[in-house]
């Protein structure tokens, strides 16, 4: 039978190869493709990757979460404060994730019960969460001196591999399994694909939306924990500018912006593409403002390629 190459499905891998090759050639003398730099890229993108896993669930369900930046900083600050008062690591981490779940429950509760679009709900809560994280320490940074915490969740290595990257792989595996193999994953896809058909098939749409928002927020709070461990401290600015990168990673990764279709593995590749971009533009010696412009342009190109409807 006739097979046509459906480039759209592989767009994330194609952009990955393009971006990687271009920078490898252009930045050959600056050591772009050295193992150390590559591991550096993976380390830098881990937080985006982990947050993007939850965002992939949200976008697949036809939702979006703009409040993850605030969730990242609230969680990081909370964990840092708890560790400062010598609370044990497992308790602090659990409390951090619990904080993420609480933020998600607020978002999800409003989305499911009051029936306001998630875009508007999280536009509102994003400033609430960001404000709350400023109040928490009065804009002060909180250092973390707990070596175990810093090593396990951030700056440590196993052999040559950064623990941040290992966490990314673990989260990706869990995310992928939940997305592909559980009833919840199917419910997410069907709510995003066709909400009324999902309802008529007995899917509990409100419940699915609620838990999707909770999962999205928890994965952001895990990213917050990783940030804190990597930086050996927390500050209200953590995650401030990440929401765009996270959403771009998901869409470049091949998840349909209108819901109903997506991939977790693609999302991770998408976020690595963004990471390469950030790193490459930096090595090219562009100023911060130039980087911002270049990054925006490349993201628009990549996203429009993956959004374009192929004709059949």
């Amino acid at each position: 039978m006739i097979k046509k190459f459906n480039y759209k499905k592989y767009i994330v891998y194609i952009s990955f190869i393009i971006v990687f090759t271009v920078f490898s050639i252009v930045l050959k003398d600056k050591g772009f493709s050295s193992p150390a730099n590559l591991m550096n890229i993976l380390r830098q993108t881990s937080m985006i990757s982990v947050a993007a896993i939850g965002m992939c669930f949200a976008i697949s369900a036809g939702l979006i979460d703009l409040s993850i930046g605030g969730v990242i900083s609230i969680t990081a600050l909370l964990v840092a404060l708890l560790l400062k008062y010598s609370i044990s690591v497992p308790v602090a981490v659990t409390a951090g994730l619990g904080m993420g779940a609480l933020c998600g429950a607020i978002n999800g509760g409003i989305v499911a019960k009051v029936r306001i679009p998630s875009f508007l709900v999280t536009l509102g809560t994003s400033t609430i969460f960001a404000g709350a994280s400023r109040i928490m320490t009065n804009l002060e940074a909180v250092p973390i001196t707990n070596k175990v915490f810093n090593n396990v969740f951030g700056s440590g290595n196993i052999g040559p591999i950064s623990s941040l990257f290992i966490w990314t792989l673990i989260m990706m595996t869990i995310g992928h399994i939940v997305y592909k193999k559980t009833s919840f994953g199917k419910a997410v896809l069907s709510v995003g694909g066709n909400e009324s058909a999902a309802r008529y098939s007995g899917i509990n749409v409100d419940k699915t939306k609620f838990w999707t928002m909770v999962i999205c927020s928890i994965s952001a709070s895990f990213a917050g924990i990783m940030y804190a461990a990597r930086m050996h401290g927390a500050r209200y600015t953590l995650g401030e500018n990440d929401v765009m990168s996270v959403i771009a990673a998901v869409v470049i990764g091949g998840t349909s912006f209108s819901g109903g279709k997506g991939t977790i593995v693609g999302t991770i590749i998408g976020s690595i593409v963004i990471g390469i971009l950030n790193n490459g533009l930096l090595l090219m010696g562009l100023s911060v403002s130039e980087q911002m412009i270049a990054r925006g342009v490349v993201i628009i190109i990549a996203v429009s390629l993956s959004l374009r409807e192929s004709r059949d």
Partner: protein
Amino acid sequence: MDNYIEFKNIKKAFIGQLAVKNVSFSIRKGEIHALLGENGAGKTTLLNILHGLFPATEGEIFIGGKKVEFFDSKDAIKEGIAKVHQEINLVPEMTVMQNIMLGDEKRKGILLNKKQMYQETEEILKKLKCKFNAKDKVSRLNTGEKQMLQIAKALKGQAKIISFDEPTSSLSNNEVKTLFSIIKELKSQGITVIYISHKLDEIYELCDRATIMRDGEYINTFEIKGLDKSVLIKNMVGRDVEMFAKRQKPLRANYLQTVLSVEHISGKEGYEDISFNLYKGEILGFFGLVGAKRTEMMKGIFGATPLIQGKIYKNNKEIKNCSPYNAISHSIGFLPENRKEEGFIKDLNNTDNMALASLDYFERNFFQNKKQKYKNALEKGKRVGLMPNDPDFITRNLSGGNQQKVIVGKWLTTNADILIFDEPTKGIDVGSKADIYAIMEELLEEGKSIIMISSELPEIIGMSDRIIVMHEGKITGVLKREEFNEAEILLRAVGGKE
């Protein structure tokens, strides 16, 4: 002109599938030409090529001796080739006028000329005898009204060629009559009409000639006048089939055992004080014209829309705060009339769509059992006669009738013992209708009970144990099988007798 529209060696390949194989035939100017064939024969695909929705892989189309090639449906519309789609394609949040004028807004300078647009819309609506207004929001229309709106939209331009893809599948008798007189009027104006339908009576009433396709191939073109129906069917299906809806097995309704009891329910959609019982092993038919609120009422029973008042008992136990989720957990299933909007998830494959209402059933220690789901899809696909019966096929890419079969398969997968079928054979071809009827009888044998809404009188008379007739949201008659009588049913449906 004998060869007004000419298809020459048209071929269309989709990823993994050849939908149209080397089709050549021609259509005369000013005739009403039927396109017939089983589900998945390639009828819609062929029309889509004519209308520029996608290009043919090979082959050419000539209109009036001139080769045409459209890259876009807008090109085709400019050339006067209009289409009434098989699936409803409207923007629900816009008004009737906005939908009709979409993409072709009238302007006065840089501003929209609303007055002119309303005027033109009102004219078209009046011509079609539509009961809704130009200012109504589309989301408030029912399926039949939406279908009329689709037709109005196609009739707007100065069309030379109009095609109808199963236009009557959601219309009531009266609307069908109006539609037919419009189509005949179009013909008398010299407009060429292409007409797809699975209802042969319509073909005989309306069409001059019919072209039959099977399995993507051209089979034959016939003059309708004087043609035997069985010849037509044999050419379509390739074998003889049972044409009439009738019960093949002994009736088995047990009137001593009520499985569903509906008491005095009303909803804001306009159905009022509805009470009836469903007995074990029966098919309870619901007949009515558009506006009878049968679908709306069933949605209320299924919990998809709230009830204002009334109670529902399943096996003598009240079902409280009903939602589809709750109804399904009480083993009530509902096959909606509107398959694209309510029936299936577009990006999922047949395996997942058929499993959708039974996700709990397929769960083993948190995980979906993929193998079992795949096996189920294969088995149900075979039972409903799905073509192609490929569990990995994305449901959206199936032909209209085959999508319907997937949704039937979804409800066969659940263990629901009360099934509400809203127009179950909508878009299903002559050959497969009998399969659906047989499946319904098998369900009765398994101890289940069925409520069937149908707007086809022969179907409802042939299959039901009892018929409830509704008119404008109220029950106007309950008939036992021995009392079935077309005239009586129609009289009650128009509210002529209480």
